[in-house]
């Protein structure tokens, strides 16, 4: 009996530590909330704008810095897309404001979700995944209307067939796109996203 007990402990331990979390985290639905003027994100500059030392472009940065090495050709280019804001990971957001908010992101920093308000990131779709783009890879976000650019990382997964213009709050702010707390953009800003496969190990500065 003691041997059986010990084995069951060992097997249960192995089973419990292997693999990933199995629970599907569905954001609870919040009540509808009409944003007030105070709810508008006012384009706070996040991170330090860096330019001049990146051979690929003079893009700025927000949170992750700029890639230290050459990235080569992008594996994925979105073309011009309507900008959409992903507020996931922002501890100050909730489904009360943004019905699609989720506290989690696919990528993590020190085991925590990537805060949309602090880090410039882009949301992956199936086409980006097919191009070999993985969570953590570098991406370049361009405001098509103004030419402003910011370096970002791929840190979340969205619906498989969603257009590839979904970016974090910090990325939007860095390229001059304003949005409401419900994640709706002000106006109809257009962006393009270029993602660089197998670039996740390249450090930012």
């Amino acid at each position, binding site marked *: *009996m003691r041997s*059986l*007990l010990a084995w*069951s*402990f060992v*097997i*249960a331990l192995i*089973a*419990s530590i*292997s*693999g*990933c*979390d*199995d*629970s*599907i*985290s*569905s954001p609870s*639905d919040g009540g509808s909330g009409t944003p007030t003027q105070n709810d508008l994100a006012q384009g706070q500059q996040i991170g330090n704008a860096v330019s001049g030392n990146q051979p690929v472009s003079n893009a700025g940065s927000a949170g992750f810095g700029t890639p230290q090495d050459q990235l080569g050709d992008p*594996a994925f280019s979105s073309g011009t897309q309507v900008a*959409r804001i992903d507020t*996931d990971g922002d501890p100050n957001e909730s489904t009360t404001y943004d*019905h*699609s908010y*989720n506290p*989690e*992101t*696919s*990528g993590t920093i020190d085991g925590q979700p990537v805060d949309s308000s602090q880090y410039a990131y882009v949301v992956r*779709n*199936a*086409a980006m*995944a*097919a*191009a*070999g*783009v*993985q*969570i*953590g890879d570098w991406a370049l976000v361009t405001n098509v209307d103004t030419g402003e650019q910011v370096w970002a990382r791929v840190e*979340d*997964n*969205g*619906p*498989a*067939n*969603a*257009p590839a213009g979904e970016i974090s709050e910090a990325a939007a702010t860095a390229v001059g796109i304003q949005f409401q707390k419900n994640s709706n953009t002000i106006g109809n800003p257009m962006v393009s996203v270029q993602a660089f*496969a197998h670039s996740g190990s390249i450090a930012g500065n």
Partner: protein
Amino acid sequence: MKILSLNLTILFLSLGSGLAQNVASPNGQYSLTGGTAARVVEHGAAIFTVVDDMQGVKHLDVSWSPDSSRVVVAVDFVRGSYIYAAYLQDGKWQRALEVDPQSIYDDLTKQVGASGRVVKDLRAPGNWLDNRRLTVNGKLTFSSQQQVAFSYTLTFTDAPTQVSRGGFNEGAIKGEDFRIH
């Protein structure tokens, strides 16, 4: 005895988790294992990687074709499920990732009369119609909070394909006959 019972309960709960640890093919020759990557295993050895990047994965749904020559893996990332597949072609395993036209969402939105954009798209394998065609069931959530169930047929095509930069055979699997329920 109570401790033993508790341990066995924990064991079964753990093994019953949604992340497939080892799903055998119908003929028993292969299995699909999860973990840091999703791989096809034969005789205990991983022989082919279907999904490289499992970061952020919450759940895997695995379904083998009746003849064990194809396997579909629905990878759930909370806001989206991506449909990966591996298939035997001339004795070698190949892989594919379903990429539908973006107009699919527009078409489904019109069908259901929904407002807003698709913010969540979760899918799972259903029944195999034959060795090449599988029903996929899904649920769309719109930014208006409206939710609709849908299904379609995932077909393994014979169309010549080129390999994407991610190593997936483009056009090797295709979603067809999307329907709202």
